[in-house]
């Protein structure tokens, strides 16, 4: 992981936010991610698609070192955030995760008030100097999460009392509140009904203005709707990566074509 790799391979430091080279992930004996090279651009929504168990979620969790919490997981290769190797010994995952936030498959609001849910990240990272600044951050984040109007009158109510879609938008707002540069989303709509899904998708598109968004999804329609770039994973390999329109209309790899046309997956 510490071997030197020529940095010329990073094409353009201005637009490339995260660049992964030769990434391998092992869970115990299982080789889950094989040799993945990919560049993720800033202010872009990148969708990871692929059949279940193809490794797209595992790869996503590598990007902010969430895999560290799993004892048997080993990651090899380089993942660079703004040109810095996030698996370097000197990198503190806590600091990394402040820059690379994450939203999970199932909405997981903390058993606290809505306000405290949002304020949690800013508090631990010391983003607000006083109460009014914190209030400002909370309001801004809830507005960005497109949920402000629904909860502004009950900020002291527990976050667990919201509906599923509201909970997920709360979790997105919570992730946004820490002001990350990259936002990772692991199937954020899989537990939501179609209306809530539409709301979250709309939100993702707005978030692109300020963040790089990486979204793992099962649904190809969703990938087509929200993303500019798409990466197709299959059996641990990154099969194809490119413009979303390109991938869906004119896939280069036969495996991608089979998946899109519904023959595998």
């Amino acid at each position, binding site marked *: 992981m*510490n071997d*030197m790799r020529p*940095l010329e391979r990073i094409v353009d*430091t*201005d637009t490339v936010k995260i660049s992964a080279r030769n990434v391998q992930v092992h869970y115990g004996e299982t080789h889950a991610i094989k040799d993945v090279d990919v560049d993720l651009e800033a202010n872009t929504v990148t969708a990871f698609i692929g059949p279940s168990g193809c490794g797209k979620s595992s790869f996503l969790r590598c990007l902010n070192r969430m895999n560290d919490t799993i004892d048997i997981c080993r990651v090899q290769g*380089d993942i*660079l*955030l*703004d*040109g*810095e*190797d*996030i698996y*370097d010994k*000197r*990198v*503190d995952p*806590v*600091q*990394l995760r*402040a*820059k690379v936030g994450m939203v999970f498959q199932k909405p997981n609001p903390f058993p606290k008030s809505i306000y405290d849910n949002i304020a949690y990240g800013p508090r*631990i*990272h*010391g*983003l607000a100097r006083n109460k009014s600044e914190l209030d400002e951050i909370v309001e801004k984040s809830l507005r960005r999460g497109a949920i402000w109007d629904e909860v502004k009158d009950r900020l002291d109510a527990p976050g667990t009392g919201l509906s599923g879609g509201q909970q997920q938008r709360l979790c997105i707002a919570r992730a946004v509140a*820490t*002001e*990350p*540069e990259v936002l990772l989303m692991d199937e954020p709509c899989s537990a939501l009904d179609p209306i809530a899904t539409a709301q979250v998708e709309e939100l993702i598109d707005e978030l692109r203005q300020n963040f790089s968004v990486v979204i793992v999804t099962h649904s190809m329609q969703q990938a087509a709707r929200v993303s500019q770039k798409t990466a197709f994973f299959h059996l641990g390999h990154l099969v194809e990566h490119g413009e979303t329109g390109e991938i869906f209309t004119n896939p280069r790899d036969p495996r991608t074509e089979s998946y899109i046309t519904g023959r595998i997956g």
Partner: protein
Amino acid sequence: MTDASANTPATPRPGKHAGSLLEQNARTLRRNAAERRFRAYGLSAIVIGVTALVVLLASILSQGLPAFQQTFITLEVHLDEAKLDKNGNRDIEEIKKVSTFGYAPLIKTALSTRAGELGISSEDLGVSDKEIAAMISKEAAAELRRFVIANPDRIGETVEFEFLATGRIDGYYKGRVTMESAEKDSNISPGQLQFADALKEGGALSTHFNWGFFTMADGSENRPEAAGIGVAMLGSLYMMIIVLVLALPIGVAASIYLEEFAPKNWFTDLIEVNISNLAAVPSIVFGILGLAIFINYAGLPQSAPIVGGLVLTLMTLPTIIIATRASLKSVPPSIRDAALGVGASRMQSVFHHVLPLAMPGILTGTIIGLAQALGETAPLMLIGMVAFVREFPAAPPEGFFDPASALPVQVYNWTTRADPAFVERASGAIIVLLAFLLCMNFLAIILRRRFERRW
């Protein structure tokens, strides 16, 4: 990527988290220090817990192990016919008329003789004849009398005996008594200790394993050397038998009803609440129950294993019921369905199929319940088991109604006595108790490992 930062444009974007990832900012350093402190608290909590266990066991072991050793004085006693059987007709009734006071002089003579043979001079050591006689336990005369009554035909012979030395002499060889402490002690003098040393050199006095600790009954206040846990172990055994015979069937029957047949209504709810509450009621309250109901109301005798057994049964029932229900619950419904499917009644499906499968879990729970009951002290004190009991209870079932002691109560009893030799014995008895508990828990673990099923 050691020089990666050199190739990166510094802070490319004015974000909230500006700065290189490769350097931990001040806040992160602070937070990581807090993290390490928190971890250290957790680890020290565990260390404290484990240390407490180690210190507890070490202190009990170090204080209690000497109880298994005892100092004995070996003497050849001439069973003088003139004193023990004046008429010489070996009539057992006449021999019985000679009390222990008649035997004491024989032992005294034997000891003086032995000392003479070894060339120990009592004048040089400044010990009186009375003090020499006091070196042997008062129990010795009783022991000799029992021997003679059991073997009247040996009167007139010279027989070798191993007598208990008195508790202070024993303490001298275990470090409890020293020459200095003997100066101030009215029960022992330095002269007696020197005399004992001389006996030891001559081979007449030795310290070795003490079977009597396991077989003898409690000893009175001034003869700790003769105190044993025989009656207490028997009493505990009787109580465990009663608990096993009552609590296991009742507990299993109650669990089967609650788990397999009971409808969901206020009555079964009431039973459930009662069971979980009884599991947490202070044990002393069960003692009050035993005293009020079994002794004062039903008129059962005090200090009897039957009352202790009944009280402990009521205390153990919740444990057994909770374990049994968990065990019944873990038998998958498909087993019941299979039995019902071939035309068995519900009762048959439970008794023929579910119960045998749940048996290992039930037995494990029962053993753990018994182990709890074995160590229980407070309720037994209230039903009179602290009494001083010298007589062994008879064989069951009559023995269940005889006065007896119990191991933990015997321990408490000994700690309240003045002579420090009793504290040593209390610790010794605790070791025996812990050994029993260890065996029971070990058995439970083996049962669980051996028969555990995963569905």
